């Protein structure tokens, strides 16, 4: 099924109107030698019924977090998603709409994105937010680009405790630019950014300081201290990389002195789906408004004075400015931003706070139980953590994970994984706990650990 809907007779009528004998006459611009004579080497068309069966079969070959209790995190978290979100983001009016360039035909999406911008600005304690970027990692890259253009400096200081996934993307994206990437070391004892070291690294050529909190070990960084150091240099931009759920409970980026706050919006009602599509969040102080990347929705009025919304400050964007645009981003993550705004609206301030509190209490319950087991200890016991923590096990993380898997658990992510840049030893396991985990599941994990300890 190719979803076309013209009858043979209609095709003939259309060809007659054009004045050609056959469809092939419309393709004569393609040099004959290049034209495909046969069919592409693809599997033959499948009916919808066959597809339903094939998809169900392939999906059935995976074992996911609907069957296993997930303690994996490292940038993607297994949160509860209210049913309402799937319903409304499946509605054709949102699902199949175009980017809202034509404001009069897109008021629904524009208002929803405007509300999203407001929610993200308030959640992060920043002045303004854009309407989304691809994901957390690319949002960090865009934040660094903004800092580079805003300050006209060339040193980029990035905390070694930032998620390795993000650092990897940043390094790739900056690699051909006249930019110096400098790693801010972590204190080996605490697993947190070494503020003294940061102080020694910062100089007049520093465009930005990037610190994520919670960091890659789940620890809560001292943003205020790091950003105070950043602001000792003229114009240097403090970039906070946040977790939106943690924002509902912990000190917000804005309150800690961030100039730009970016994060991964996946925890806000977006399924894990093996890594994407996710949602890049980007908020900033209002003096950066004309340098922001991505789409911005503004409030205005129509000819009758009614409140209405439109894309605004488009002269920043690639379709107007080309190589002088603030970013190349065009299509962003509209539907994912809709999921996030619906998530925040459904839970509300109180609900979001409760999600964050439950994450915190459950993670601390599990950490206490695990560290009470002989042979298990927190890798970084001194720091406060949110909903993720690193445990040093008496056996290898791989063994722990295999044992947990047999019991229907995904115990965590091994810190020695190359995806985490080998940030820990073979026995170090990174465990994340969301509000979805039950006491019974956590006790199961403790049993597994006790048995192999």
């Amino acid at each position, binding site marked *: 099924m190719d979803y076309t809907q013209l009858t043979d007779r209609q095709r003939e009528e259309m060809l007659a109107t054009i004045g050609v004998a056959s469809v092939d006459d419309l393709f004569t611009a393609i040099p004959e030698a290049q034209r495909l004579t046969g069919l592409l080497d693809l599997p033959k068309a499948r009916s919808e019924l066959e597809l339903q069966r094939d998809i169900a079969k392939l999906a059935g070959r995976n074992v996911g977090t609907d069957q296993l209790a997930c303690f994996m995190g490292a940038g993607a978290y297994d949160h509860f998603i209210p049913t309402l979100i799937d319903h409304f983001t499946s509605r054709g009016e949102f699902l199949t709409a175009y980017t809202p360039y034509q404001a009069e035909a897109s008021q629904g999406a524009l208002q929803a994105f405007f509300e999203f911008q407001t929610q993200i600005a308030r959640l992060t304690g920043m002045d303004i937010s854009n309407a989304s970027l691809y994901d957390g990692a690319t949002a960090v890259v865009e934040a660094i680009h903004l800092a580079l253009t805003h300050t006209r400096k060339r040193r980029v200081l990035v905390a070694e405790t930032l998620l390795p996934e993000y650092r990897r993307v940043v390094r790739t994206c900056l690699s051909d630019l006249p930019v110096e990437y400098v790693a801010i070391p972590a204190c080996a004892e605490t697993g947190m950014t070494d503020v003294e070291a940061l102080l020694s690294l910062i100089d007049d050529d520093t465009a930005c300081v990037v610190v994520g909190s919670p960091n890659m070990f789940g620890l809560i960084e001292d943003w205020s201290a790091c950003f105070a150091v950043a602001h000792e240099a003229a114009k240097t931009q403090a970039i906070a990389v946040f977790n939106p759920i943690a924002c509902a409970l912990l000190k917000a980026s804005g309150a800690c002195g961030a100039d730009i706050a970016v994060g991964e919006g996946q925890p806000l009602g977006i399924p894990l789906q093996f890594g994407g599509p996710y949602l890049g969040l980007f908020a900033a102080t209002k003096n950066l408004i004309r340098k922001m990347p991505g789409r911005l929705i503004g409030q205005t009025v129509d000819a009758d004075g009614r409140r209405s919304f439109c894309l605004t400050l488009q002269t920043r964007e690639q379709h107007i400015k080309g190589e002088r645009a603030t970013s190349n981003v065009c*299509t962003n993550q509209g539907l994912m931003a809709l999921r996030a705004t619906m998530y925040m609206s459904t839970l509300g301030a*109180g609900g979001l706070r409760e999600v964050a509190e439950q994450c915190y209490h459950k993670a601390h319950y599990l950490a206490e139980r695990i560290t009470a087991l002989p042979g298990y200890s927190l890798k970084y016991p001194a720091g406060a953590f949110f909903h993720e923590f690193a445990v040093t096990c008496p056996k290898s993380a791989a063994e722990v994970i295999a044992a947990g898997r047999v019991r229907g658990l995904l115990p965590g992510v091994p810190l020695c994984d190359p995806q985490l840049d080998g940030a820990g030893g073979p026995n170090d396991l990174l465990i994340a706990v969301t509000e979805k985990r039950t006491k019974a599941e956590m006790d199961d994990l403790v049993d597994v650990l006790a048995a192999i300890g």
Partner: protein
Amino acid sequence: MTSSMSLPRLDEPMMPTTKPTVKTYAIPTRGDRPTVPSIFEKSQPGLRGVDLPALDVPTHEIPEAILGETPDLPELGQLQVARHYSHLCERNFSVDANFYPLGSCTMKYNPRINEFAAAQSGLINLHPMQDEADVQGLLQILFETRRFFEVISGLPEVSLQPAAGAHGEFAALKVIRAYFTDHGQPGRHIVIATDNAHGTNPASCMMCGAAVVKVKTAGGYTDLDDLRRLIDEHGSENIAALMITNPNTAGLFDTCISEVAQLVHDAGAMMYLDGANMNAILGKVRPADFGTDIMHYNTHKTFSTPHGCGGPGSGPIAACSKLAPYLPVPQVVKQERDGHTVYSLDWDRPKSIGKVRSFFGQVGVLVRCWTYIAACGPDGLRNVAETAVLSANYLAARLRNEFEMPFFHPEDGHFAAHEFVTVPKSLLARGVTLLDIAKRLIDYDIHPPTMHWPVHDCLMVEPTETESKETLDRFADAMLAIAEQIKRDAESMAQAPEHAVVRRLDEVAAARKPVLAYERSG
């Protein structure tokens, strides 16, 4: 838009008030279009739209030093949330309800089987770092999707990682830079783009630190003499790539594409294809066969993944064998192990540029692509291109007497590809603006075409293959009726749209004093 838009909504007073005053509540007359109060204005502190299970573990003290305020976010009951988004839905055009003849964006129908596939619990509930043994079904889909894109392009290797078309451009330019650096030619820093290129092309170059120079087009086609001149002027040893869209943004298949490719290759550079217009050539010609070295797809254009009000898309890139080792990690691969077929992620690619986004890519979008390509099959994909081109030429033929078309000359064999450009000079000469025409289409429930691009004062029309002849005719009739109205009463056009949920917006004021968030109340 339905007439119910203008009816009053009993649950939503038009003028929120905090004072307990008796207010008159007039029933809006037909034609009034109440705005939807914001979710913030509907907030009643203390309400929840959904609950959580009670906490089943002891609480743990939260240190004062890290504790923050509860964010100032709206609180509503679930029905209020549902009504809010229902009402917002009603204020949006969509492919499901409206025709979108939108040049360069291929707004085709989004089959629901794609959504069925992407929503399978065995596909959406997978953590990106789960063991490959638990995700074999998904990896098989991703591997097959990769293969599909390789076959369609005729290029040997595809990376599925880029998140959108522009992101694919960026990744591909990084790949080209990495190749040249690896081959001792780091000086190749100039990218040539056509003067009618998508804005993302030069913007992506900028993000890679490449310099952009523009090659002229004449009559929509690449000017070969200008290309020769540019290569000479800048020195062939400094050119990294040519970025070209083919069929191009004028709606033409570039008849001299082979000569263009030859000039680029003679300069030792790479030919980059912006695949935005792949819908016109699916199964008719493979980009590799006209000299493409690397390209991106826009899956939300060509492969029917929904636009979702502006994303998520995805922008897989296909590369020739020279460039393939530099594609992003990880790559999804298929192996035979102990007599079994195993799919896995290969991180061991030493020449790779690295990663351009987190984890694997826009997996949920890619699942929809797999489903679409599997449904179409090779004959279906070819029919997609043929029908898209037929529909575009049909519309162009119906409209050309009233709407001038600088690039559409069927008598000389210059047909449209899947889209065409009109510069309606004689209508504009009557004192209307292009915006007037666009906004009047909204009154006909039709989404306006792309405007002022690739040339000033143009409309770019792309009907796609999925529209019925009745819809195509209705659009042509609407355009002709608009032409009539302009001739009869040009002034009245400034009132358009008259039947949308709002009248024309003051977009200038929005940019002059930007308001990007609701004011806090109280």
